[in-house]
């Protein structure tokens, strides 16, 4: 507070995080205390004052972007539930972390949807998976599980159907590992807990009615007359989940007035596997290949965000060596190549959605295959790369991209790795981008379908926590690689792609610019790789341990992935001196949160545009549903 008094010329909306916290404390004395648990940051806010404090944080302090809101169950570690919020300024800089605690028995925390609309889906997720109620939420119902599901699966005391042990590695595997299949031991139904009052023969499914309820149906299904006197019916149309243009098992429930969409409600969770629960049973290392399966188009980026979060935690300990320069350069190269793959894929399938069926996308996939060949030779797999490790990588680049004829696979290739890369980066990828632009940018059909369709304003984009090309296509120049830089991005020369219009075409333009910027970054990486040739990818020259102990604390690692901001909130708790399994492992999935504004973006457009609008957001259901 003295600080604040001493530097009055610093406007409060750009003040440092510490000053901002001091300001909050002076404003709301008694409602705020510092989070002083070892390795934790930010403040703990009294739930009764949460909404007021959040208003100040957003309005006066300028933290206009709510990146992540998630719950933690501290069963046995204080026995409370906690909501953790990470708010950022779109002008750049670090997070203001604030938390609110509630008891486990009857958890309730006021909803922040009135402050940031981006809290909508995230609070529904916390209700669904943790059972925390959010008074004030306009539509608090389950989002990943179905309505009528018994229990809240992320709670520490909730056990899944094939539950074996609290934490991996399981004792039954070694030394007395007599194999069996889980389904043989747990015959279906045996370890499902039914509530005592349930009658299985008269089971009712309330999930459908819950979906329609929020659309306000039953009141207005009456016939209505439109302006020109044509008689149109208000109809409910289900698009998906089994529909080729929803990019996976995703469903949209629309009400349409004639051809015009009056409201849209996304319904998801068909691919839900409780990734986070699996992640909390896993050890830290186990999680890396699981992150590949989130956004399976850009697994390198997923790896990167996760290892950054765990490295942040590890750096709290005494024995920690940050990755070497070569390691960082390789990481950046891999994620930029993934970004190229991602954007080629996104643009290609978006074109499928608006009717350019498969010709463009096949041209792009052809180039993607080259990049995947490279991933396969370096990391061992085309899509499930599992390439990054804490403090290092799976391996350095091989000398040659080379296959050995074996078994029946006899078509052999043999390239020099660096030459292959150089040719890809300097010739092939730029040529593809040129072709892509020639094919699409001035194409009249693309223009007519996409200009002024699916418009999202800059304010809405920020308010709804949109991220990535969706945010930048609405004129907000927010790119984590610049706003909150990590790895070696600060020393690389590249521009943030922004377009002002906020329509589908603007998002397409952003992606094209980002493709070019990625090539620009890759061109700067090549000489760095040459210069560091021979340097180890591990700080101390040898691979890290397979069961690292991670010091007590929390970390939020986030990266700018192809689809937007990908964040990992990881908590290490339980046990002195750290843990080998994460206590909390949360994925802030851009494909999930970017759907929050979908309903708003679709209102007033035609049914045929909806698929295109969804395609222009670029989601992948592995990440949406987790």
């Amino acid at each position, binding site marked *: 507070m003295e600080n604040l008094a001493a530097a009055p010329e610093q406007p409060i909306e750009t003040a440092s995080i510490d000053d901002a916290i001091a300001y909050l404390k002076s404003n709301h004395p008694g409602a705020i205390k510092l989070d002083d648990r070892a390795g934790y940051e930010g403040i703990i806010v009294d739930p009764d004052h949460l909404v007021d404090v959040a208003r100040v944080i957003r309005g006066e302090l300028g933290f206009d972007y709510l990146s992540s809101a998630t719950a933690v169950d501290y069963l046995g570690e204080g026995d409370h539930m906690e909501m953790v919020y990470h708010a950022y300024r779109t002008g750049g800089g670090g997070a203001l972390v604030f938390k609110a605690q509630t008891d486990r028995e009857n958890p309730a925390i006021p909803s922040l949807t009135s402050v940031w609309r981006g809290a909508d889906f995230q609070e529904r997720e916390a209700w669904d998976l943790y059972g925390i109620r959010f008074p004030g939420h306009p539509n608090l119902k389950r989002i990943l599980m179905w309505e009528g599901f018994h229990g809240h699966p992320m709670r520490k005391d909730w056990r899944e159907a094939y539950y074996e042990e609290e934490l991996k590695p399981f004792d039954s595997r070694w*030394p007395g590992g007599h194999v069996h299949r889980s389904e043989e031991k747990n015959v279906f139904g045996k370890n499902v807990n039914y509530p005592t009052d349930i009658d299985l023969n008269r089971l009712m499914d309330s999930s459908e009615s819950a979906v329609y309820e929020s659309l306000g149906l039953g009141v207005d299904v009456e016939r209505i007359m439109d302006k020109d006197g044509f008689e149109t019916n208000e109809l409910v149309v289900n698009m998906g989940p089994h529909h080729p243009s929803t990019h996976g098992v995703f469903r949209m429930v629309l009400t349409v007035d004639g051809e015009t969409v009056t409201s849209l409600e996304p319904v998801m969770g068909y691919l839900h596997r409780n990734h986070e629960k699996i992640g909390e049973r896993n050890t830290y290392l186990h999680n890396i290949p699981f992150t590949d399966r989130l956004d399976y188009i850009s697994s390198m980026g997923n790896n990167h965000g996760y290892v950054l979060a765990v490295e942040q935690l590890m750096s709290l300990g005494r024995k920690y060596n940050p990755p070497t320069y070569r390691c960082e350069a390789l990481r950046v190269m891999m994620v930029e190549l993934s970004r190229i793959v991602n954007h080629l894929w996104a643009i290609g399938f978006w074109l499928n959605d608006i009717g350019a069926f498969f010709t463009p996308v096949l041209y792009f996939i052809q180039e993607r295959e080259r990049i995947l060949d490279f991933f396969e030779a370096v990391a061992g797999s085309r899509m499930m790369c599992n390439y990054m490790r804490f403090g290092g990588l*799976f391996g350095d680049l091989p000398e040659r991209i080379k296959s050995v004829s074996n078994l029946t696979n006899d078509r052999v290739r043999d390239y020099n790795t660096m030459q292959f890369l150089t040719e890809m980066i300097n010739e092939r990828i730029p040529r593809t981008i040129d072709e892509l632009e020639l094919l699409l940018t001035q194409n009249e059909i693309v223009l007519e379908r996409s200009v002024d369709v699916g418009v999202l304003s800059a304010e809405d984009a920020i308010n709804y926590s949109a991220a990535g090309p969706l945010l930048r296509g609405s004129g907000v120049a927010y790119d984590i690689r610049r706003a909150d830089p990590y790895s070696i991005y600060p020393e690389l020369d590249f521009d943030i792609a922004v377009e002002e219009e906020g329509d589908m075409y603007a998002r397409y333009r952003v992606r094209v610019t980002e493709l070019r910027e990625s090539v620009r970054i890759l061109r700067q990486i090549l000489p760095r790789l040459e210069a560091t040739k021979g340097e180890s990818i591990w700080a101390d020259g040898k691979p890290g341990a397979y069961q690292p102990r991670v010091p007590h604390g929390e970390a939020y690692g986030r990266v700018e992935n192809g689809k937007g901001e990908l964040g990992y909130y990881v908590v290490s708790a339980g046990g002195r001196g750290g843990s080998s399994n994460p206590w909390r492992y949360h994925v802030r999935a851009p494909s999930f949160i970017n759907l929050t504004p979908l309903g708003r973006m679709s209102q007033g457009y035609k049914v045929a545009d909806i698929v295109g609008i969804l395609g222009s957001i670029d989601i992948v259901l592995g990440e949406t549903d987790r």
Partner: protein
Amino acid sequence: MYGTGLAKGLLLTLRHFVESYIDDLRYGFRKYHHSTDNFGIRQGTKTKGVITVQYPDEKVAVPERFRFVPFLIVEDEDHPTRAGKDWCTSCGICAKVCPPQCIWIVRGNDPVTGRPVPEPEAFFIDIDICMNCGYCAEYCPFDAIKMDHDYEMASYDRTSHHIHDKERLSKPNSYWRGIAPTRAYEEMLVRGTWEHKDAAKEARRGAASSARGRSSQPAAPAATVTSSAAEAAPEASAAAAPAPAAEGATPWSEDDAKREERRRKALERKARRAAKQG
């Protein structure tokens, strides 16, 4: 003029179509001929036009680091002292590090003393659950488990074929050196010998103790531990650093005949397995 953008795009598709044939002419249709050079051209960065691989008539050989389901290394049949012995010591690290926990190991125990012996009694991998992450191979301290390149494993009945037991998992060391020569070479450099760590240690100890005349067992002299004369150089002295210049050291120096032979054997193995699965 309205439609120009569209026309330009259409010209591009036409160009792609024509370029395929120009490329064919440029390489005199060699692109389709079965040889390394030609296939490299077709799949390389310079090629233009259509580049489809006609799977399953043609199959791309996978790169060395490619990972599918793991297999266990056993010593070659013609190894003088350890023929058919597992490289695995049943230390259990792979089972711990496996993310979906699909490795099951029964540690071997000496029937007389009851003490653990460094060889697994049983070893299972449930390949339905295996997520092909490669951790087991990466963290095994004895280089005893490796990722296989054989990816055609579909079968009609998962319950009877998809839990691989030790017999199904085991493949000779020479197979690994065949499918991944560079990596086998790098691993040899780290271990300091082409042999299993323990074999090398034993040989050293054997040599030392027989020199002192206290050995009760006939210890294998260091020079005979090697499996073939061609590999002799690195092990001439197990303690000395390997000499990479020697034959067997350059991983890609194998001639085509040998490779052809190996491929034939692998095909036979595969056919046998298919017959067994019915």
